[in-house]
């Protein structure tokens, strides 16, 4: 235990004295802390729906022109009042001719132009159509309104009564008895991505650290000074503490800051950041478990090569498994009570994301959570011990990368 703690302390010191690690952590934590305060400084009411900062009314001539919309009504049923009500920030003007309308739009004298050609048809003129252009959609609604009024008048119906009938209000009371998948989906998605990124980034770092010990020839001194279990467990657990510590600081800063600014965001980010405590606890246990499981495998993979440039060869199979599990987990988030996700939630390679998703969004019994976690812990210990044996076996095997299957065969033979 003393030796394991010595390795753990030494490896942690390596992480915490790494300037890049410290700077990235501080930078992201500060960004997470300050980001949620943005609506207090910048007017983001278009997104949040909450007006905190008064927008400076500095409208220049160019903006003024862009807000001018032209129209030609060949049917004669448009009303400027209705247009103004549907497009409150635009100024509507009647154009003299189609040519004049087109020229005005082309020369940026007007933001857009509409030519009503029939009771159910119109032409829309715009110079550059942006990704967020909703003018056409809004004008469609205007046309529909006029069409309906026109219809009522032709048929001798009361337009107000008819409109009232079309938009009869329905009152619905919702009572969710278990989980609200709609609201839980996005933070679940976010947390699965966080664990995936941790595994990929830190797993690779652990593999590199192990390979470096072989390439700089320190490994022979190390394995004759302590056990390979102490070395690999110390290294992997130090990586886990450093990475989860980093995530905890960044996520903690973001969540606390968002908690303080939730109202000014109009609760718009709740779907990502209002994470219930039970889900966070499940994430902590299963996320850490999944991370450790793969980190030990990465450590073992690092011991199979003696040059850092060969690490990608050794870890490609493992990366493939992680990617497939990740993609499959994300796809299955839409069906958290399906058979496939149920099976995956008990496998150590996938329970870190699938059991966690089931807890957050599906129906899962307590015994299932406990069983899945026990399987995960047992697998971590098994992978850790096998990983340490591979690490020890690979100590003085320099040269070509050793295949994982050959390493397992050699281990079996040596026992």
């Amino acid at each position, binding site marked *: 235990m003393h030796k394991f703690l010595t390795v753990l302390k030494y490896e942690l010191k390596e992480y915490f004295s790494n300037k890049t690690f410290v700077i990235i952590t501080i930078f992201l934590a500060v960004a997470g802390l300050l980001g949620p305060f943005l609506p207090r400084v910048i007017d983001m009411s278009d997104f949040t729906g909450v007006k905190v900062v008064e927008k400076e009314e500095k409208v220049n001539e160019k903006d003024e022109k862009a807000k001018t919309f032209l129209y030609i009504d060949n049917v004669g049923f448009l009303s400027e009042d209705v247009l103004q009500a549907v497009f409150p920030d635009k100024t509507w003007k009647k154009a003299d001719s189609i040519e004049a309308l087109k020229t005005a739009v082309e020369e940026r004298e007007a933001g857009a132009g509409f030519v009503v050609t029939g009771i159910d048809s119109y032409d829309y003129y715009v110079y550059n159509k942006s990704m967020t252009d909703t003018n056409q959609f809004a004008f469609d609604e205007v046309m529909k309104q006029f069409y309906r009024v026109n219809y009522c008048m032709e048929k001798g119906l009361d337009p107000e009564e008819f409109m009232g009938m079309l938009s009869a209000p329905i009152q619905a009371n919702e009572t969710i008895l278990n989980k609200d998948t709609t609201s839980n989906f996005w933070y679940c998605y976010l947390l699965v991505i966080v664990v995936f990124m941790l595994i990929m980034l830190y797993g690779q770092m652990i593999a590199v650290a192990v390979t470096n010990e072989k390439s700089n020839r320190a490994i022979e001194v190390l394995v004759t000074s302590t056990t390979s279990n102490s070395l690999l467990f110390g290294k992997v657990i130090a990586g886990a503490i450093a990475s989860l510590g980093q995530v905890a600081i960044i996520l903690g800063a973001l969540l606390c800051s968002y908690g303080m600014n939730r109202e000014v965001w109009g609760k718009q980010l709740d779907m990502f950041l209002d994470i219930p405590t039970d889900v966070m606890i499940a994430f902590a246990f299963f996320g850490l478990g999944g991370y450790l499981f793969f980190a030990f495998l990465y450590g073992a993979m690092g011991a199979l090569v003696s040059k850092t440039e060969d690490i990608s060869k050794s870890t490609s199979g493992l990366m493939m498994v992680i990617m497939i599990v990740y993609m499959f987990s994300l796809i299955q988030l839409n069906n958290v009570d399906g058979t496939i996700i149920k099976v995956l939630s008990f496998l150590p390679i996938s329970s870190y994301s699938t059991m966690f998703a089931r807890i957050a969004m599906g129906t899962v019994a307590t015994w299932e959570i406990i069983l899945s976690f026990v399987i995960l812990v047992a697998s971590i210990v098994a992978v850790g011990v096998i990983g340490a044996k591979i690490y020890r076996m690979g*100590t003085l095997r320099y040269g070509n990368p050793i295949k994982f299957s050959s390493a397992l065969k050699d281990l079996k033979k040596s026992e």
Partner: protein
Amino acid sequence: MKLEVKDIHKSFGEKEVLHGINFSVESGKALGLLGRNGAGKTTTIRILMDVFHANSGEITMDGQKFIPANYQIGYLPEERGLYPKRTVIDQMVFLGCLRGLKAKQAKENAKRWLKRLEVSEYETKKLETLSKGNQQKVQLAATLVADPEIVILDEPFSGLDPVNSQILKDVVSELIADGKLVIFSSHQMSYVEEFCENIAIINQGEVVLEGNLHEIKKDYGKSRLMLTLADCAGEEAAKKVTAELSDLVAVEDIKKNVLVLALAEGKTRKDVMERLAKASLEVEHFGSFEPSLNDIFVAKVGEEAEKNA
């Protein structure tokens, strides 16, 4: 403490590389493991350190099975290396703690050994910034940081300049004087000759000669004499000696102006002295020949090579 290595066999795949290694060494003495490159010295040491497992044979300490983890061992491997990006003191304290020391003790020891090896000025420097020789000295300091009772040094002199070699020689002599059990491998005979009371010559995975160095030298020099003539040397001297003493000795070797003579069977040193007194040879030096370790090594390994040819 007495460490005994008994009949160690080791194979890598189908190929047996050690065919029954035997030797022993005690505290306060040093054993020199000698051999050509690829003879099996490093494999033997790695088996001692439990880096490799032997296929058969046993290693005992005072008659009990030797388990390296139960002893404080300072091991300097042939494949040297530490952490290039970490400071010297950091990694020495780390290794000291791994070998069971408290951090404070490890730091004190590290500073003491760095000072003794004259590299204390690099204490806070990253290892990669040091010269190769100084890195080697740091590695030796790291080997000794836990004040081990057993010291195993695999080719400790390789890569050191004469000044650093002298420092290392002094340190090894001190370790022996302190009663440590020292094993070191080398193919530089002069160093082995200087410290080692016992030697084991390994050739192609077998111990071809083992025992007390003084006894071995005596035994090798037993029927050999040395002769220097005042008026001639080399081939000319050899011709003269052969002409005068061919029934008593044969010229075995010529080392600069010294002739190494092998006594003929049944003849004694006295017989040669009597003949020399009567002969017309201008004798400058005459005496028993004491072979160097190098002579013994070349003779023994050469003999084995001839046998195998």
